[in-house]
């Protein structure tokens, strides 16, 4: 049994302690906004926040989040009202959309620690997240917009 806080709610889950957090969130809890992309930490599609840090949930065994606060895209806001989510729509960022939960979670980590990042700081921070549709420049624009509009 592993117990942690998921999107503000306490959960206790019966799972193989070695099972990656990604699959526990998706298949046991049933929150599917967090995506499987590579299973090896290369692409960032599975990015969630663990105690405020953006982490690759495909590489984190569920036992490692005992007592931690985990936030997924579903928990970023109740109604898509996070400034990044609004900016993502305004800049028409998503195409296939599959990587975007991870992109937004990664960007949210940046803005939490640096509310007014430079373009270079955005690129450096976001470089580990792949978007195969190539929406990167719109992601930059959306982060800048969210930074401005708060």
């Amino acid at each position, binding site marked *: 049994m592993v117990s942690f806080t998921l999107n503000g709610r306490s959960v206790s889950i019966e799972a193989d302690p070695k099972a990656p957090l990604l699959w526990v969130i998706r298949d046991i809890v049933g929150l599917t906004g967090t995506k499987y992309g590579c299973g090896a930490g290369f692409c960032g599609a599975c990015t969630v926040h663990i105690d405020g840090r953006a982490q690759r949930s495909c590489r984190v065994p569920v036992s490692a989040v005992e007592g931690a606060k985990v936030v997924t895209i579903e928990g970023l806001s109740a109604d898509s009202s996070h400034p990044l989510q609004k900016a993502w729509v305004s800049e028409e960022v998503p195409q*296939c959309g599959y990587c975007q939960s991870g992109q937004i979670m990664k960007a949210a980590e940046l803005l939490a620690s640096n509310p007014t990042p430079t373009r270079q700081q955005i690129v450096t921070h976001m470089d580990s997240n792949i978007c195969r549709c190539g929406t990167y420049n719109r992601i930059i624009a959306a982060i800048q917009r969210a930074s401005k509009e708060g």
Partner: protein
Amino acid sequence: MTMTLKAPAISRRNVLAGIGGMTFSFAFGTDGTHILPPARAATESAHMSPWVRIAPDGRITILTVTEMGQGSGTSIPLMIAEEMDADWDKVALEWAPSKPESYGWPDRAGNRVMTVTGSRAVMMYWNDLRTAGAQVRKVLIANAAEHWGVDPGTLKTGPSVVIDPASSRRLSYGEIAVFGKVPATLPNVDKSELKQPKDFRLIGRSVPRRDLSLKVNGTAQYSIDVKLPGMVYASALHSPVHGNSPESWNDADIKTMPGVIATVKLPGGVGVVAETFVQAMAARRALKVVWSKGKGDSFDSTRTLEAYATIHSDPAAAVKVVDSKGDATAALTSAAKVYKAEYRSDYTYHAQMEPLNAVARFNETGDKIEVWDGSQDLGRSRDLIAKALGFSPEQVDVHQCYLGGGFGRRSLADYAVEAALLARATKQPVKLVWTREEDIAHGMFRPITFQCLEAAVDAAGKVAGWRHCVVGDDGGLSLITGGMRISSYYALPNQYLELRNVDHNVRIKHWRAVAHNFNLFAIEAMVDEIAADQGLDPIEFRLQRMSITPKARRCVETVAKMADWTAKRPEGRALGFAISERSGSLGACIVEASIDRRAGVIRVHKVWVVADGGIIVQPAAAKANVESGIVYGLSSALQERVTVREGAVEQSNFDDYSVMRMSDMPEEMAVAFIDSDASPTGLGEISTPCIAPAIANAFHKLTGKRLYHMPFTPERVLATLKA
């Protein structure tokens, strides 16, 4: 606006029978689109489902097909809504079912298909769906006219409302749906009755894509997100060498692993089914399979590509003429100067972000199956699953899901067929997910090619003759011959295009812009080489010496102006130019690039693309799609390379298969469309194939040297600089 997965318990017949209001079902016959009255549609529920429903409260439901981020999932219902004059805010979208007979567009053989490839969805559905929308409008007007006792010819429509200008009376579409009847014989719509572009309210107005809001909060449903009661999880391991099959494996060991339910022999692989996906992945990793031997065991992509040149020079090699006009041989013989160059390209992998997966469930009697698939071709998914199961198409229902990227990979359903076979073997609903490693190892790649181009320049300095030979595996699908034809932009009088086909034991497939990628690289790099030798600016050379068509000239001149082609560039940077062509569209592209000469890394700073794609249904979405095509082209030009050794793919994940990341991006991408009233043509791939030649041409401007082998990896760049 949520696109929900189909609720499997409710049959469409019930939906049809139970819904209030008016239902319009279009049956697409080979003679075009017409509407079937609801009574007939209800009796034909196996084939029919409504494209359009109007509820008494004014809500309108319109069906749509595949959405993989390119935007046509919104454009397609938008075309219906435009002609029926629907209030778009009242329109909800639903996925069309897997019935290409009803929901397809006509292919060359006259069959209806739901194929969404080659960036052609809007182009192919344009006529039928606009006509269908206009028919709905006519029926609504006729009902209002009868209600008011006036001549239908005097009535007009506004967004979801019929208006009688004489009396200022209005009836909303919802009000009409309360009493309206869909007649047995439906009105014909002549092309002249369709809206003129100036009257469009929705088309060309950048109506936002409906899927955007679902893709910022995790609610867009991909097939990998489907969860059914009692569902079990599967993964698969395929033979590393394509064509070989499993002879035996450590079955007893695998079956003792936690959660493992079954192992299943698949065509070319082994499926493992378990209670959780984590357990299925563990079982897959533990599989030790003895594979059969086959002719692909010794295949080596590098050595094979090296040998292609000898096939080109072999007079005994089989030749297929792709196109020929005039007398290219005579033009070359009598030329003032002949140019000749050879080009090569490597295998590339789709690398769509959502690894291939599908969910399958049989009914209790085992004679019907439902499959959830993010498909680029729902009809083909249905047919391939039916074939594999020995079913008729009517026994298969494939539910569309959002696609986590397609790029050509998701039109063949090989993974969905496997999910169906696993569900049959285990008698349980199964979700099959290929691991990323499997997705690459068992990928279907853009083929390797060798190309030889020869051009004849006459005494006036004009290109008079053109010869293009491509060597490689065409797969019977124009996988390497597409994009050889230049006549839509260079109307050269004497052309000879040939294929020297080689069959390999490597899975190959359409890959965004397909053969245009390497063919346009060769063509446009070659033209640049001639221009430089002739001492002319590459754009001027094209405008003066290449028999350029008026449509292409407009693109070229527009992009040259946009990029300020003749202006001085920052130190260490240069511009490269290339024309583009794909799916009926023409384009022109300029890149501004620099080189890190020590590392051999080419950096593209700015990209300008102009495209002539006819009427642009959703300009904002189209612009995003063209930007995406640019990035795919950059990735293909600079980074992407699959190699096969001893029959097996050498790459295994995103660490060794490199794609564009944010730090590789140009700081600026400018996209513009030529104003046009012509019918729409494809836009999702127009910006992909011109990137590599534009970069190669900028490289020449910077270094005086030419790149002949895609991708332009640092090793190749360094070798070229050193040569």
